[in-house]
């Protein structure tokens, strides 16, 4: 729940921003034999292997700027994404959260080790954008976007990447700048940054692993024996609609 917005942005930027309405085609032939021409095609090329994978997981390093001019903060975590099934993020920070959204089990779980509490809610209570991301990774956004080559400093070096402009991202996605760059060794997305002058987030996907078949056990949390379960009601206390 807490990191839902960030993960939505990160995954939108890294994986799905440009993937909407990509027509089905043989991945191997497209990826390996036909060099993409336009920046947009190159972005699609970069993302297609992830979009169509049964599952991938990766280590993440997230660098968040200080809006008041102080030093940035870096956190680490791990993500598992099973298109059509679910998403898990586990922070590697001390006391960090473990978050799982699982459509098949119909659950949205947040475990906070610092509290020793597992917060449980129904699938429908997960943020709408996260659910959409899981259910329709290739259709979450409309395809009205442009990709422009841009070199940026990421991970301590200048990287060739793509700045992504879009006309419409949906009614509740903020107007932000997204830049994505591939890992030269694998061609998979590695550096993603989102944000503007005031605040920005840079995410490094380190060691993305694409699995030949999904393993739903990756959505299982490693919970201690004694854990208290409480309901997770993100908006019950507030007037308003569903989680976004």
């Amino acid at each position, binding site marked *: 729940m807490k990191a839902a*917005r960030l993960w939505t942005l990160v995954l939108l930027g890294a994986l799905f921003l440009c993937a909407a309405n990509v027509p089905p085609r043989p991945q191997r032939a497209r990826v390996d034999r036909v060099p993409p021409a336009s920046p947009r095609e190159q972005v699609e090329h970069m993302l297609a292997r992830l979009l169509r994978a049964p599952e991938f997981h990766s280590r993440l390093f997230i660098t968040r700027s*200080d809006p*008041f001019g102080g030093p940035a*903060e870096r956190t680490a975590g791990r993500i598992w994404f099973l298109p059509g099934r679910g998403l898990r993020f586990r922070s590697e920070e001390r006391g960090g959260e473990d978050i799982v959204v699982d459509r098949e089990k119909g659950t949205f779980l947040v475990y906070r080790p610092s509290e020793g509490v597992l917060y449980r809610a129904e699938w429908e209570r997960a943020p709408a954008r996260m659910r959409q991301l899981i259910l329709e990774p290739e259709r979450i956004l409309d395809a009205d976007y442009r990709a422009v080559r841009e070199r940026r400093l990421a991970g301590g070096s200048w990287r060739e990447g793509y700045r992504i402009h879009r006309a419409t991202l949906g009614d509740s996605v903020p*107007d932000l700048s997204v830049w994505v760059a591939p890992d030269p060794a694998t061609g998979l997305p590695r550096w993603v940054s989102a944000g503007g002058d005031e605040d920005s987030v840079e995410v490094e996907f380190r060691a993305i692993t694409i699995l030949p078949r999904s393993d739903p056990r990756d959505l299982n949390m490693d919970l201690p024996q004694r854990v208290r379960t409480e309901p997770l009601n993100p908006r019950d206390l*507030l*007037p*308003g609609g569903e989680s*976004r």
Partner: protein
Amino acid sequence: MYAATRGAARGAGSISMRRGDRGRGGARARWGANAESLAVVAYVGPARVLDASLKADSLFLVIRRYGMGVAGTLRDDDGVDGRVLRFVATPWDFSADWVRRALQRAEIRESGEGWRLEGTLGADGESGRNFVLELSRRGEPVSLALRGEGGHGDLIRVRYGPERRFTAGRIPSWIEWSFSGSVVTLQVEDHAPADPAKVRYAPPAEAGWTILSLDEPGGRSLVRWLLGLSEGGSAKP
């Protein structure tokens, strides 16, 4: 030293909050302060979850997780206007003229190992909340209590940790606020001079945000819920 004139400053730290028997939570916080104004951003893990700012009497607060917030002008009919709230939020900063005047007017007496100052802390210097400030023998703040209406009970109580040297000067290493059954503790990790231009008081509004007015019951409920205040609590936003 705590009352010395200060320039714009920024800070960072970790916040933990206990709400009576309703559980506990934690967040990282960054803030920027300049004169009478203050902006705070809170994070849970890498996610930015809350923005709050106070510019004179103008309050803006949005819980990004829920896309919901509140904005409006703080009324001073309770003796808690924007300036009082600003002071309570950064209670190590006694540099505002009206705070220094309140301290100069306060009744001072020896108390244990230090000093006890009693007076009135209000926007106009005459009316406002009664306060009790305990100082160590070295003049460091130990505790601050703002009395409830009529001077009965504490509206909010602040405890100060031992001093620590930061880039922008020496301030308490931790602060603990107690109010209406909630206890919030801030561990200060960074306190440094800031560029005033970096202290922005309202984030760009995002599509889908619902910003309630502070004059609406819903807006006040949101602030109460966030602060862990009961509907019938003595503190008012």
